[in-house]
């Protein structure tokens, strides 16, 4: 790791689109080295929250304190739909993008960096896939590839948005191994997930979001039936036109 992770603290964070709050009044801290799942009903604002954490979305009210970390110190895996998988590029080239922060425009990619890239491919179960065009790999394999890229990014904080949606079980299991490797290395890992069983099995901490933070703490305490009910009720109550939120900071 290039630098140790710091705590990421959210203080009454609100992110809105066109005055409609996607998330509001979220407060809490991601402790350094923690492994946290973010869960919640559909439309709960999880992706928005995560974008705010990585710096991709602007915070409308409140503050996010990253403890001195720059947004580029956070490795971010967005939801998969965005990339053009027919792009004419090899798997190795995608992984090598992870070196960007070290290599930039001009520095040569020498044998050391190449070896790291190959090792990353091995680590995600894509050993030997380097020369293959990405158009020839499956969705699961492509996701492994993106994980390999994050391995190379070597960031103290890793944020994953729905990394296992529509991915087969074997790949999911393998990639969870990579996640636990990151956790073991002391990196802060945050992942938006839907599968509560997976969360219970692999994530010690959970943040339950339904536009606002319903619960944030250790997984067994958060993923209770009553919390789930509250989240569902929040989801059903989302009004089309709401009065200006009068809640104090």
């Amino acid at each position: 790791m290039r630098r140790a992770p710091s705590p990421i603290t959210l203080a009454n964070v609100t992110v809105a689109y066109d005055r409609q709050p996607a998330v509001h009044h979220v407060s809490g801290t991601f402790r350094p080295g923690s492994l946290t799942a973010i869960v919640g009903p559909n439309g709960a604002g999880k992706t928005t929250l995560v974008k705010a954490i990585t710096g991709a979305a602007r915070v409308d009210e409140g503050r996010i304190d990253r403890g001195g970390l720059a947004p580029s110190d956070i490795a971010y895996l967005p939801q998969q739909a965005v990339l053009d998988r027919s792009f004419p590029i090899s798997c190795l080239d995608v992984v090598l993008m992870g070196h960007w922060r070290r290599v930039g425009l001009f520095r040569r990619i020498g044998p050391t960096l190449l070896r790291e890239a190959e090792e990353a491919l091995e680590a995600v179960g894509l050993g030997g896939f380097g020369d293959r065009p990405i158009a020839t790999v499956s969705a699961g394999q492509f996701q492994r590839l993106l994980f390999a890229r994050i391995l190379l990014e070597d960031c103290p904080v890793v944020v994953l948005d729905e990394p296992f949606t529509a991915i087969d079980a074997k790949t999911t299991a393998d990639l969870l191994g990579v996640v636990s490797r990151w956790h073991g290395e002391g990196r802060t890992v945050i992942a938006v997930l839907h599968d509560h069983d997976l969360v219970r099995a692999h994530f010690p901490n959970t943040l339950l979001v339904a536009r606002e933070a319903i619960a944030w703490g250790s997984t067994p305490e958060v993923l209770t039936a009553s919390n789930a009910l509250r989240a569902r009720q929040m989801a059903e109550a989302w009004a089309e036109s709401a009065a200006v939120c009068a809640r104090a900071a």
Partner: protein
Amino acid sequence: MLFEPLISPFIEFAFMRRALVGCLALSLAAPPLGVFLVLRRLSLIGDALGHAILPGVALGATLGGLSLAAMSAGGLVAGLAIVLLAGLAARGTGLREDASLAGFYLVALALGVVIVSAGSPGVDLMDLLFGAVLGVDDGALLFIASVATLTLVSLALMWRPLVVETFDPGFLRHAGGGGVAWHLMFLALVVLTLVAAFHALGTLMAVGLMMLPATGARFWSATVGGQVVAAVMMAMVASVLGLVVSFHADVPSGPAIVLAAGALWVAGLLAGPRGSLLRQRISRPHLAG
């Protein structure tokens, strides 16, 4: 003996040699840009730009007289302005790139017609500005060769961020590589190359050599770099073929070259080594995987 008809026109006539050099220079600079344009889904930008530079050309003519330098400069400024504005508008708001460009270029075109009508309506400025492949003189040759050099050098320098920004702009922006700037620089190169090519060779040739080889490159290579090389080679072959056919078969040169490029494109589509119709039909023993 077989090569004689291929070579003799160029040996005999200086205008053929100049045309060839002009085309080869364009073949080096334009197809690589075209490959990236195709990847960015901006394939129609060339045609739009051909129209969008009109107000700049008109203003250049008004301020600097009917000199090609003034008009080219005006066209260049207008093209850059429109492309940059469109790019910024698209990246800054939810407006899509193609819609943004369409909006700006239409406004520019209309503005251009107004300016032209206010000036001397009898002269077709675009006619003056746009060259013809058989009319390449030393000045135009110098212009296009310089621009080609600049484009190639810039592309070499920008290669890495350009590929990343085309494939995953979010990643580059997030990792601190600066997203929009590369995009705008790339577009500026496109405008510059197109204006130089319009001036030296006319619109059909300029856009044709930029886009046709690029769209056909996917049948020859599976990497961006490979596609660039394939596109450049196709453009060069098309240039030579087109000029030779124009000479021997009495066909207008510009269209001949573009048709040659089209023929190469179709050939790739039918039987190229990657993803062509033929390749999809014949089955080869699969690798051990």
